[in-house]
């Protein structure tokens, strides 16, 4: 157990793990493009971050998420920078849960998706409060926000509801898709990210 802990939080990042970050960001980007091509009612823009977390652990997962949003912030959409913290939290959550054995079956993967969605909403709420008075700019989320406000709910609760209706379904589907892909990957593509392995003498 203590050995596991050390490897999950290992600070010495291998070259393979570093190169995984841009790949994860690329996969995030294409996931989002394909989702809009197929007119899916979800973002699916964090598949790369989730996969990176499953492959290389929470640190690399979080780094993929954070850098993902910073880069889209400075190249396309400044507003996405704000959510770098949320993306980082998604990477951390999936990385830790994957390491603790929570991606060994579909049922467990659904739980990972639910937890990740809730974590994302919890982290996003204060950001939305600070930056835009509680809204997200997502039509469904903001409609729900409006509904909650009109029933006299406090603003933070409305804001949290705004995020939850958007984040939970998206993250459950994202984690499930990533789970199916991850299970299908050959050993030769996954074993280079393991930070715990030692050289055995023969």
């Amino acid at each position: 157990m203590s050995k596991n802990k050390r490897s999950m939080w290992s600070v010495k990042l291998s070259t393979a793990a570093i190169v995984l970050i841009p790949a994860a960001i690329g996969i995030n980007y294409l996931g989002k493009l394909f989702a809009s091509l197929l007119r899916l009612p979800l973002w699916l823009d964090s598949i790369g971050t989730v996969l990176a977390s499953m492959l290389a652990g929470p640190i690399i997962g979080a780094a993929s998420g954070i850098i993902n949003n910073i880069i889209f912030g400075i190249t396309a959409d400044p507003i996405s920078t704000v959510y770098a913290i949320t993306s980082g939290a998604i990477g951390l959550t999936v990385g830790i849960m994957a390491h603790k054995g929570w991606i060994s079956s579909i049922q467990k993967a659904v739980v990972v998706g639910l937890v990740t969605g809730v974590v994302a909403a919890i982290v996003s709420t204060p950001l939305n409060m600070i930056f835009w008075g509680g809204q997200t700019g997502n039509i469904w989320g903001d409609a729900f926000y409006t509904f909650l406000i009109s029933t006299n709910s406090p603003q933070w609760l409305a804001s949290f509801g705004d995020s939850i209706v958007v984040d939970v379904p998206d993250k459950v589907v994202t984690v499930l898709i990533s789970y199916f892909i991850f299970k299908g990957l050959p050993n030769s593509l996954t074993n280079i990210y393991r930070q715990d392995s030692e050289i055995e003498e023969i």
Partner: protein
Amino acid sequence: MSTIEVENLKYRYPDTTKLVLNDLNFSVEKGECLGIIGENTAGKSTLCYALAGLVPHFYKGAYGGKVTVNGLVVRDHEIATIVENIGLVFENPFSQMTGAKQTVYEEVAFGLENMGLVRQEMHTRIEKYLKLLAVYSVKDKNPFDLSGGQMQRVAIASVLAMEPEVLILDEPTSQLDPQGSQEVFEVIEELTKGGMTIILVEHKMDKIAQYADRVLLLHEGRQVDLDTPENIFSRGDLTDFGLTPPVVTTIAKALGIQYPGTKLYPVTIEEFKRLGEDK
């Protein structure tokens, strides 16, 4: 001492059960070109990784025996140290570009920046190797805008600029079109003539015959034979290892053209013609 010494080398990838390298023993002399042949999954690439230190440092897994490059025991040194002695170029030119540099010139500089060279020395080396590899004219282009052949030559220039003692080429033309392959082989010819120590993995047997001083025949991780191209390609059992000799050798066998007083067949066109005329 030889430039490369391999003793009882054994290796297995992590989470697998099969030895991919099984008790290899050979050495390579300075200025020699060693060809490595064998069917798919024979372990050629893995052997290249073992010479360059990627096995075991990058891949981990189970490792036994000893590899010495330029006096350096590979097992005991970091990859960053080993690469100053041995360079590796492989099939896919695209993934050998760092992806972080905007121009060919800067691309070649990448390794030199990591080595901590002073600026003047960097410029000298970059100019030298861009010219040697005939890619000086595209030095200001984005590496990803080049043709496959040009990109592969930039990859070779980038590795050579670090001035290693040995250059490993693992199927350097298998993903290139004929034009690109031709360009790369011209460079290899220059380098062998220039006295560079080269390890060349190739499926094109005529190229092995043309450039290699000796050939290592691998099969299922074992060293079947290590000899001159004539000896290797004159073997009657090559098909057992999933290989066919160069076309000239096959024709020479059919026509019975041999080196006088031996059972050896010619492996290059020049030798074929010479022996044919003598006959």
